[in-house]
Every structure is written in C-alpha cells, then in structure tokens.
C-alpha cells in the first residue's frame, strides 16, 4: 500500500507528445480509474507509472519515494494486462511463481503465497493447467493472481475486462471490486468504459488527448462535469447538449437568469455567475433521465424558471426497465429522454418536454462549466 504522485509528467514518442503535463495525487489504498476514449493515452500513462515506458519529463513518486528512473520491480508494482499476457508454456502455478522465483524467494514461501492467492481466486483446481486450457474468465483470474502473489504496493490494470463477454465482465467487475476491499491495495485501473469507471472507482480521472480533463468521485463527475468533454463522456445515454446563445435584454437586475435563444425560441436560463454579453454561444446540457414529459409523470412540479419545449417523438427504444425517446428539436438537435419502461408513449406523438432548471448544466463557448 502506497500513495502515488505524478508531477508534471510528459511523454513523447519521437515528436508526438502523447501525455501532456499530467499531475495527479493518488492516496494510499485508493481505487483510481483512468477513463477516456480509445487513443487518449490511458495505457501510456499506466505504462509510465509501471516503468514500461520511460518518462520524458516529470517526477513520479510512489510512497513518497522518487521512482522516476526505477525498474518496475523496484517500484513494487504489479500489472494485469489487457491480453492477460500469461506465459503460454507455463502452468498456472508456474505463471504465478515466475516473478517470485525471479526475486529469489524460497520455494515453500512461494508455494504458500500461490496457494493462498489461488484460494481467494478459486484457482485451486486449475494450478496444473496451461493458459490454453482455461476459459477467458479463468485466465483473467490467473493474471490477477500473478499480480497478487507479488504483494505489490500498487496494482495496475489495463482494460482487464475488455476481452470478456458482457455477463462475465459484470461478474469479474464485482470480483475485482471485492478483491480491492479485502486487499485494500492502491489500484490504478484503465478502461474506456464509463460504466466500469463509475462502478469501481473511488476516484475517476478523465483523460482526453493526453490531458487530465477532470478528477473526482464518480458522483461529482456525474453531477458537476467540469467541461463538455466530461459531460459527454460520463453517463449513458450521454447528456443532451443543446446550442443556445445569449440575447438582450440581459437581465442585469436579476442576475439569476439570462435570456437566451434555443432553436429560435426565447428562454430564460438559470445562471449564477456569468460575465454575459449579448449573442454569445452557450451549450445547455441536460441528462436524458432528468427530462420529464408533461402529463406523463404526475409528480412533476413545474417552476417558473424551468424550460418547456413542445416536440414530436421520432423513435422509441424499449429496454424493459426504461425506454428511450428519440426526439429532435426544431433546429435538428437530437435529444434523448429516458422514461419509465411502462410508458405507453409512441412514435409520432406530440409531447411537451419539461426540463427542470435545477438539473441544467451550462457551458460557455470554450466548453467550461458555468453552472
């Protein structure tokens, strides 16, 4: 167990800068998830922490010790690879023993550690098998076992579940979560799947193009995305984003609102602090699950500042527990609304959307959150 601290880390491959000035504090025992779209540099960042790639500039500390130029072994970390990277010619037992043998530990100790880990991971019966004779989930567990026996200070996972099918993925997700509870070891976990990130993380780090977009707990990212990128990335279906622009008169006397125009209609948008000028572009964000449909939901309380928009349903996707309504606004902006699975709403029906002002996210021209 150790804290990890990244200070102004840069990484370039040749001329291409892949990691751009990443600074991050990870506390001891924390489960941190790096999430971001494919190619944004998650793996690279993880491999930098691991010691598989050389840090171009910056300082990496593990347990308050500068490890920037140490080998993975000296850093005291273990990594679970996306492809598992099990040694195909070794049995499960030997796979787990390899690192320990390399470190020169004695046989009985190695044996004990392997048996303990095997019990935790339900690998007892499989110790003499080769990787080719294991199912995907079992291989995954061996890969984790191989990391556990090393008793690392930090666990690194690179998209460990991406090769599993959907149901196994959920099961392994729970297992990893449980494992983290019991081992209480600092863990850094990379995924491009925001559901994995939300469910596993103590703290999520959203990356985009080699930069940190936001760091925070899953709920803080959901509730208060710092910018458009995070807003789009966290939550499924993704947050609806609607273009708007400010419009005179700007009610200076009542600074809680600004006048704006959405799709040709004048609306008042709630706004706390905004240096507003006339005719500035804004993006209004609203999550599909926060949009109500007037007349559908009895409990809806409509406040004066809430938005109301008449629209027509394009398409209904019924998932059982919920249904998604696909709608477009007059200017063509697509909007998705989540409604109860029992809803009888159907295609072509005219409805009135109700968007509660309290649930609105507002982003300025450069995509930063202003409310």
């Amino acid at each position, binding site marked *: 167990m150790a804290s990890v601290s990244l200070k102004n880390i840069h990484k370039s491959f040749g001329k291409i800068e892949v990691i751009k000035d990443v600074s991050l504090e990870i506390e001891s025992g924390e489960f941190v998830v790096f999430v971001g779209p494919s190619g944004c540099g998650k793996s690279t960042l993880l491999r930098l922490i691991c*010691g*598989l*790639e*050389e840090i171009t500039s910056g300082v990496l500390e593990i347990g308050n010790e500068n490890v920037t*130029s140490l*080998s993975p072994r000296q850093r005291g970390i273990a990594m679970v690879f996306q492809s598992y990277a099990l040694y195909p010619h070794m049995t499960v037992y030997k796979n787990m023993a390899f690192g320990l043998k390399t470190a020169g530990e004695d046989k009985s100790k190695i044996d004990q550690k392997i048996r303990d880990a095997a019990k935790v991971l339900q690998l007892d019966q499989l110790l003499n098998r080769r990787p080719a004779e294991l199912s995907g989930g079992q291989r995954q567990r061996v890969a984790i076992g191989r990391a556990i026996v090393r008793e690392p200070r930090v666990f690194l996972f690179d998209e460990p579940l991406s090769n599993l099918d959907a149901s196994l993925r959920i099961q392994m997700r729970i297992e990893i979560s449980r494992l983290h509870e019991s081992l209480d070891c600092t863990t850094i976990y990379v995924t491009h799947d925001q559901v994995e990130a939300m469910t596993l993380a103590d703290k999520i780090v959203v990356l985009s193009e080699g930069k940190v977009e936001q760091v925070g707990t899953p709920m803080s990212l959901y509730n208060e995305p710092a910018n458009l990128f995070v807003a789009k990335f966290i939550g499924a279906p993704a947050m609806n984003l609607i273009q708007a622009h400010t419009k005179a008169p700007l009610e200076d006397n009542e600074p809680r609102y600004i006048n704006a125009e959405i799709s040709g209609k004048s609306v008042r948008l709630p706004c706390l602090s905004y240096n507003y000028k006339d005719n500035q572009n804004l993006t209004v964000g609203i999550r599909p699950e926060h949009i109500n449909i007037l007349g559908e939901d009895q409990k809806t309380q409509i406040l004066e500042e809430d938005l109301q928009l008449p629209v027509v349903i394009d398409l209904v996707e019924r998932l059982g527990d919920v249904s998604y309504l696909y709608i477009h606004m007059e200017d063509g902006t697509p909007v998705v609304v989540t409604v109860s699975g029992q809803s009888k709403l159907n295609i072509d029906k005219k409805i009135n959307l109700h968007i509660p002002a309290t649930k609105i996210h507002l982003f300025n021209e450069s995509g930063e959150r202003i409310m």
Partner: protein
Amino acid sequence: MFSSLFNSSKNRGNSAFIHLFLLAYTLLALFPVFLIIINAFKTRKGIFNDPLALPTSATFSTKGFEKVMANSDFFHYFSNSLIITLGALFFILLLGAMIAWALSEYKFFGSSFMRFFMAIGIIVPIRLGSVSILETIVSLDLVNTKTALILVYIAQGLPMAVFILSEFMAQIPKELKEAARCDDVSEYKIFFQIILPLTRPAIATVAVFSIIPIWNDLWFPLILAPGEEARTVTLGVQQFIGQYVTDWNSVLASLTLAVVPVLILYMIFSKHIIRGLTAGAVK
C-alpha cells in the same frame, strides 16, 4: 517494449556491446563481397600489392571485364538465367495457386492423399531423382534446353508454393466466394477474378522462396544443360573460372558481374524480400 532496457548507464554499455557485435558480424558478411568488387577494378599488380586498397588512378583497370566479355558470352548466360527463372516462377505461381486452391477449397476423393503427395516434395530434395530426371529429359529430347530446366524448376518449386498459398487461401473469408457462388459465377471465374488477386501478399513469399534457389542452382544446369546454348550465369561463371583460374583479373571480374546484379536488386527490393521471407511478420 520496455525502453528502460537501454536507460541506465550499465545498459547503455550493454547496448554499445550489442552494436559492436552486430557491426562486426555485418562487416564479416559484407567485406568478402566488397573485397572482390574493388579488386575487380584493379590491375594485376594492384590486386597483389595492396588487396585492401580501393582502386586508384595508378591501379585502376577494367581489363578483367574486357576479357570476360571477349571470352564468354556473359549476357547470353544472363538472359538464359533470367528467362529460366522468370519462366519457372510464372508457372510455379500460376499452377501452384491452382493446386493450392483445389486443395484448400474442395473436398474430393483423394484430396488428403494429394496434400501428402505434394508435401513429399517439400521434404525430399528433388536432386535425389536426378538419375531418372536425366533419363526423362533425354527421352523427351530436351537436353541442353531452357525448357528442361524450367520444367524441373517448376516441379522443384511447386510443393513449397502450394504449401504457402494454401495456408494463405484458407484464411480468405468464406463470404467472398459464397457471395460469388450465389450469383452463379463459375468456379474458374471465382479463382481467377476473386481468389488470385487476393493472394497477392503471399506471392511475394513464394517468389522469394522460388527465385533464389533457381537463380543460384548449379546442379541441374550442370546435369541437364551444360551446353553453351542454355547455359545459366551460375554455371557459366563456374566454367569460366575453372578455365581461367590463374587469371585473377578475369576471375574477379566475372565474380563481380555475377554479384552486382544481385546486389542491386537486393538494394531495391530488400524490404519486399524480407517481408516475403518473414511472411508479413515484418511490416
């Protein structure tokens, strides 16, 4: 790959050692050829007085080349080799692809025997059948012809070609041919217009594996076509040098004439050749 391998000062020393070794071996691989080429352009005196020196204005001479040109029909040999190699290669590729396709696509009576039958040719060197091959060639009245060599080289190259191409064809998506069959395209059209163009990547591999042994072969030219008419470069050089052993200028010049085309072609095509040899593992 872990770049830290070459990070620390200790490993930097290690890597310097690796470069030293590889450099030394590269030198060993190329120097003999280099030595032959530079000395081919020297006078006899220059060759013996300072073999390691580049030709200077005092030692420069092309006498060797002039003699080779005068005393042997080098270009004739060269064109023979070219015709034989390319002729054989064409049929190896075409006929090999046809067999490979038949074996990888259709299940028929005796198909597994046929596969085994072709595989024998990969393992057993064709040379061992020389006694009988010569008798066949004699009875077909093909001794001292390029045709004889082309036929034998086709037989030599086919098994490997079939092996490589059928492995490759097995990976062509089924949907491609099935779509064609749904449109009632004939099996011949499927082969020539869909499959053959798709095997292009494997053809580099087959070509490399076929061309080198054919171009360089001494055995069959020696046995089947020793006469002047169909003489290949390899045999021509061998016989020329045998005749002029003591004439160093001529020997060096003829070796250079044999090496330089290969060297130039390799400089141009080395990427393709290596890619072919490693079956695409090298991008």
